[in-house]
């Protein structure tokens, strides 16, 4: 392992992380829920009366963030090198896995770990390990 110091952005990472944490805190304190994106989005496919509007509002907020950002400044660098086929496969796996696993990077990784939930800590270790392994296989074993 070598650290890519030129790509390392500690300040924006910590500040961005703190903003994400503030959003999760806001949601817990005001709505009493976990700000878990996969569960909030996925729950829309199981619509129940009185359980729809807040989900749509949360999703709309996420989608609106880059739109509002663009009114004031240029968006930060976003680079997607992955081809469309792999992206579709990735999306499918993320969509299935997060629902069976009951959460994603936000629900388990941020909220669950912040609550010291054993389930979320196990889930976070599992998806991180699988992510590390997948990138290792894709970058260092398959495409040399």
């Amino acid at each position: 392992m070598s650290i890519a110091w030129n790509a390392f952005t500690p300040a924006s990472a910590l500040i961005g992380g703190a903003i994400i944490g503030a959003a999760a805190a806001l949601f817990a304190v005001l709505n009493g829920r976990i700000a878990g994106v996969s569960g909030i989005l996925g729950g829309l496919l199981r619509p129940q009366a009185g359980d729809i509007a807040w989900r749509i509002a949360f999703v709309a907020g996420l989608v609106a963030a880059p739109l509002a950002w663009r009114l004031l400044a240029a968006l930060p660098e976003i680079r997607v090198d992955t081809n469309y086929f792999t992206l579709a496969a990735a999306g499918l796996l993320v969509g299935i896995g997060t629902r069976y696993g009951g959460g994603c990077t936000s629900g388990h990784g941020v909220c669950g770990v912040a609550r010291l939930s054993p389930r979320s800590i196990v889930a976070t270790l599992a998806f991180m390990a699988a992510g590390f392994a997948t990138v290792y296989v894709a970058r260092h074993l398959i495409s040399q």
Partner: protein
Amino acid sequence: MYTAASFTTGFVFGLGLLVSGMVNPAKVLGFLDLAGAWDPSLALVMAGAVAVGAGAFAFMKKRTRTLLGAPVLLPGARGIDSRLVLGSLVFGVGWGLAGICPGPALVLAGTGSAKGLVVLVSMIAGNGIFEFFEKRKRVAPGPAQVRSS
């Protein structure tokens, strides 16, 4: 009121994802590439988020109502099962393939990125596959399933 709070949370969350670099798949993959030139930034994103979130969750732990008077719906303690682990592993493989998890998928779609839209649509299709099998299981006789959220 709760709907406005939801929108605000999603919005602030999205801004945080943009600031942190989580919306940039190249950066996320740089974090997941331990054997290559490793970019440790995203570990700090998580550290920052957990540090700020932890106080709020500790504050809510004993409460039954939120500051807006809503019932607290934070999940209680549940066991660790194969469903949790296998699902998370499958998610991790998908995350490693593209460097995009659910929050950033929505923000990427909001930037108008065609690739972001492809991930979002296939992700929702994945949610649909899960719901299809869950519904079949609910219809079939057998022990009641605990709903995951």
